[in-house]
């Protein structure tokens, strides 16, 4: 693979913070409070974002929301067609999802296949009342009929480009960039 260069800065750390604050308000508005909500971040990018949303929702609403993490490697549909598989990360859902409104959180929404896998995986843990989707960057090119309920930023891209979300939790500068050759 050729080394990809940073082509454009899409969001800086202030931009990411603002987007997450707005998404937190939208989640609360749509669900009339935090009572039934459970946040589940998709490994790896979504987990940090889910925790941040939980902190913000708590600040706004004064009530804690449970947070979990989900790895979808075992539910992928492309086993055998990729050169290698990523080592699966932990799935840890420390609350009962039965009859809860589950907000799935991921950093980038692209083909929609990850979200399909995540929904199938969630169903193996129980029957949530509703599943909603919160995304930091929606870059288009959907291959499945899936859309996000809460979007930080809509970003038209070419399918050859790569969108990279870097968060402070992983160490280093916090930003969203487009990479290309």
């Amino acid at each position, binding site marked *: 693979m050729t080394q990809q260069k940073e082509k454009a800065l899409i969001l800086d750390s202030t931009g990411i913070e603002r987007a997450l604050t707005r998404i937190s308000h939208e989640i609360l508005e749509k669900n009339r409070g935090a009572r039934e909500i459970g946040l589940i971040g998709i490994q790896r990018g979504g987990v940090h974002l889910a925790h941040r949303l939980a902190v913000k929702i708590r600040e706004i609403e004064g009530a804690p929301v449970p947070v979990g993490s989900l790895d979808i490697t*075992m*539910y992928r549909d492309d*086993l055998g067609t990729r050169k*290698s598989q990523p080592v699966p990360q932990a*799935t840890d859902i420390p609350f009962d999802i039965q009859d809860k409104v589950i907000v799935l959180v991921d950093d980038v929404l692209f083909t929609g296949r990850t979200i399909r896998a995540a929904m199938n995986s969630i169903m193996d843990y129980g029957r949530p009342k509703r599943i909603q989707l919160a995304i930091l960057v929606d870059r288009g090119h959907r291959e499945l009929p899936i859309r996000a309920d809460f979007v930080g930023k809509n970003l038209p891209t070419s399918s050859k480009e790569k969108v990279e979300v870097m968060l402070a939790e992983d160490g280093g500068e916090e930003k969203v960039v487009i990479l290309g050759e």
Partner: protein
Amino acid sequence: MALSSKDLLGLKGMPADEIRLILDTAATFKDVSERDIKKVPTLRGKTVINLFYEASTRTRTSFELAGKRLSADVINISTSTSSAAKGETLLDTARNIEAMKSDIIIVRHSCSGAPHFLAGRLESSIINAGDGFHEHPTQALLDLFTLREKLGRLEGITVAIVGDILHSRVARSNIYGLIAMGARVRLCGPPTMMPAGIERTGAEVYRNMDEAIKGVQAVMMLRLQLERQAAGLFPGVREYARLYGMNRARLEAAGKGVIVMHPGPMNRGVEIASDVADNDSVILEQVTNGVAVRMAVMFLLSGGNKAEA
């Protein structure tokens, strides 16, 4: 990263990073068995054949559950009910199975090298579930997994393997795996059951069990294969138990917190005292981990496009 071979035949020559990949992957597969719904769709539509030419309960069940928890279709074939009893050759049986479109064939055979023979002639991934006196790689991998889970590392630890090393494929795979991962290995057993030149693997040979287990982090007790007693390799079961059996006094003299392992099936009162087996061993944890490790191996052998890689 991916495994470099389509098959898992043994741990001899397997690079440390591939062993580590299997162990890391197994850690998450272990969670699947803890859930209410113990099934993921990872290998949906794949066909896994258990082709066993030797008796086995634990290993066969473990592979079967591993395949089923990954949603593969698993078929068990044992020689007593197969056409091998009518004289069909191993290769013909395997080719017929592959003609029905198998993806993974798990082979146990009393002849060393039988899985290697098939691996070179079939498209399916072959997993060695024990061949003769040669290797039993998934058993060693689940032992490594258990040790790593208990101790947090493999590098720098010392493990004693005690018993009939000569006839033990479990010992052989563990020696290769442990040394590849940077552990030290001590071997102890009757001189008649110690293979000539085994020091070349990097393992140290001890004559006295108390010395062999002093200061180690773990002891693997091997099954005394009583069916081989006719060969006259040791004088009697009671003498064997006295010289090479694990009991409480010995375990306490070895040091604090020594992990006791056994690949099963165990002869209580021979190589391991019931008291130690029931109160101080990790034998059942090894069995639990076996399913996770076998899931990881099947997953990794199915993933990755070998033509591209």
